[in-house]
């Protein structure tokens, strides 16, 4: 199983070089003398957020596809980031501002995180226990879940007290241009810990590419690793959503490109590959919105446009099989 690593070394080198070039282009290009201090700090924060998002979305999308045995679903397509926004709205709605002031932002985040992990893990387990084989059902259910949670969140945001809503707005509608800086530290920590936790199981996940029956026959503790992965995917999705907001089709875009560049089942190649592709895609998108479109179009729109096309292509390809 070792021999495959060599041919990908060059690809990794090129991708890393590309990511570094794009990163420095973003960081230094067009800096005016007067606004140096302001701009460089802002740009460093954006690059850091991009790195955290790429790790979180890339890793969660690859392992999610492994345990669900398909190549067109990702946590975001299953409506997971909308679920996060919904839970956050509910937390703020029921706790209200009075109590919110006593709670620090981090406590609020951790509470949302706990509810999110419990809720999404139960939804996954329920869905994949009752209807395991059908990808179409899962896509449909995921999209319906996503729309339902999105709708419920908007509904609650409409009936919420206007002063509470302004607090909510500040916390919830993060984007790449409005990064949730106070939670940057804790969300990076969660992404880092979850990544290490999952990386320990890469060998088992390689075997799980073969499906449940073969994995069990080969002695993988299948149910335990599926549960663990679902929990980690929930944590990762929550962390990236709180930091930069939902970007539904980012995961599918970067995983599909990575699978094309790295045609392998090995997670120790595929995951870093996906993360590098994610970094390159996000920085390029950021360069386009900032420098050419003058912020008229948000980054998530560009990413969703490209990712959406990619998703439609994959669904059409699936139909042919």
């Amino acid at each position: 199983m070792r021999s495959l690593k060599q041919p990908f070394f060059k690809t990794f080198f090129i991708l890393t070089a590309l990511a570094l070039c794009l990163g420095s282009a973003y960081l230094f290009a067009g800096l005016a003398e007067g606004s140096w201090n302001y701009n460089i700090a802002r740009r460093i924060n954006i690059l850091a957020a991009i790195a955290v998002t790429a790790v979180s979305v890339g890793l969660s999308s690859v392992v999610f596809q492994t345990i669900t045995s398909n190549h067109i679903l990702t946590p975001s397509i299953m409506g997971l980031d909308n679920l996060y926004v919904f839970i956050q709205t509910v937390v703020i709605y029921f706790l209200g501002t009075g109590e919110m002031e006593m709670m620090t932002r981090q406590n609020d985040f951790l509470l949302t995180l706990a509810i999110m992990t419990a809720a999404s893990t139960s939804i996954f387990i329920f869905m994949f226990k009752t209807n395991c084989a059908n990808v179409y059902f899962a896509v449909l259910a995921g999209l319906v879940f996503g729309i339902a949670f999105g709708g419920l969140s908007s509904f609650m945001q409409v009936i919420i007290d206007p002063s509470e809503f302004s607090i909510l707005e500040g916390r919830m509608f993060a984007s790449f241009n409005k990064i949730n800086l106070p939670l940057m530290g804790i969300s990076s920590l969660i992404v880092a810990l979850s990544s290490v936790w999952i990386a320990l199981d890469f060998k088992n996940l390689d075997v799980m590419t073969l499906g449940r029956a073969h994995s069990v026959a080969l002695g993988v503790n299948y149910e335990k690793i599926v549960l663990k992965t679902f929990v980690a995917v929930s944590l990762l999705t929550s962390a990236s959503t709180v930091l930069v907001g939902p970007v539904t089709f980012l995961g599918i875009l970067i995983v599909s490109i990575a699978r094309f560049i790295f045609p392998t089942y090995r997670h120790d190649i595929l995951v870093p590959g996906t993360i590098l592709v994610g970094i390159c895609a996000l920085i390029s998108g950021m360069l386009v919105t900032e420098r050419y479109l003058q912020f008229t179009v948000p980054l998530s729109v560009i990413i969703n446009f490209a990712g959406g096309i990619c998703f439609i292509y994959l669904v059409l390809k699936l139909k042919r099989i």
Partner: protein
Amino acid sequence: MISTENISKKYRSELVLKGVSTILPTGKIIAFIGSNGAGKSTLLNIISRLIPPSEGSVVIDGKKTSLWNTGDLAKTLTILGQSPQSETRITVKDLVSFGRFPHSNGETTPDDERAVAEALNITGIETLKDRYIDELSGGQRQMAYIAMSVAQDTKYILLDEPLNNLDMGRSVKIMKLMQKLVKEKSKTIFVVVHDINFVSFYADYVLALKDGILKYQGETESIMRPEILSDIYDIDITVENYRGKKICIYYK
């Protein structure tokens, strides 16, 4: 030795397996026969811990399956089900190398290399080792999965309809390979087979199920009788002798 104690399996409200208790012999090819829905695959899947029984227990080498560590059990017993088409790009050699996972946990040792080379050799697919499995024909792919199970080097090998969708030539090849594994490596092989004549020619021992009940069990000779087979499959079956073996004729 594998034995089952009163296993039953319920799907929703339907009992597909009703109190099966048996002791299975070792060092033989053991065929599971019965019509569709008789419970053969369910029984095989329960023995291999792929699905839990609703009642009863399976004992493998003196220990109940629920007490086995799943990683250790994978060094003693393996099951090969009907393989679904996989989207994953994986070469035959890598697939066969997965068979060594219970022994090496992904870090390939020289022992593993040897076992993989031997498995490729014994299944006759050495020339295909660098091909991707999604490019192979159904028969070649089946052989690759069998090679993975061979590389796993377990005492018990369970095969759920390995001859499905294969031509006669390849089916014979697979059954001969099974005989070789039993003879040369003293494996015990459990196999679900639909073609009764393959059972007659290659199996040493037969378990016959009907409607979830284990109805007959014994040496192949003793099961290949018209009245037993007619009962199992609910059609008239004539049994003829041909060069010391029994041939079943059920075409009308």
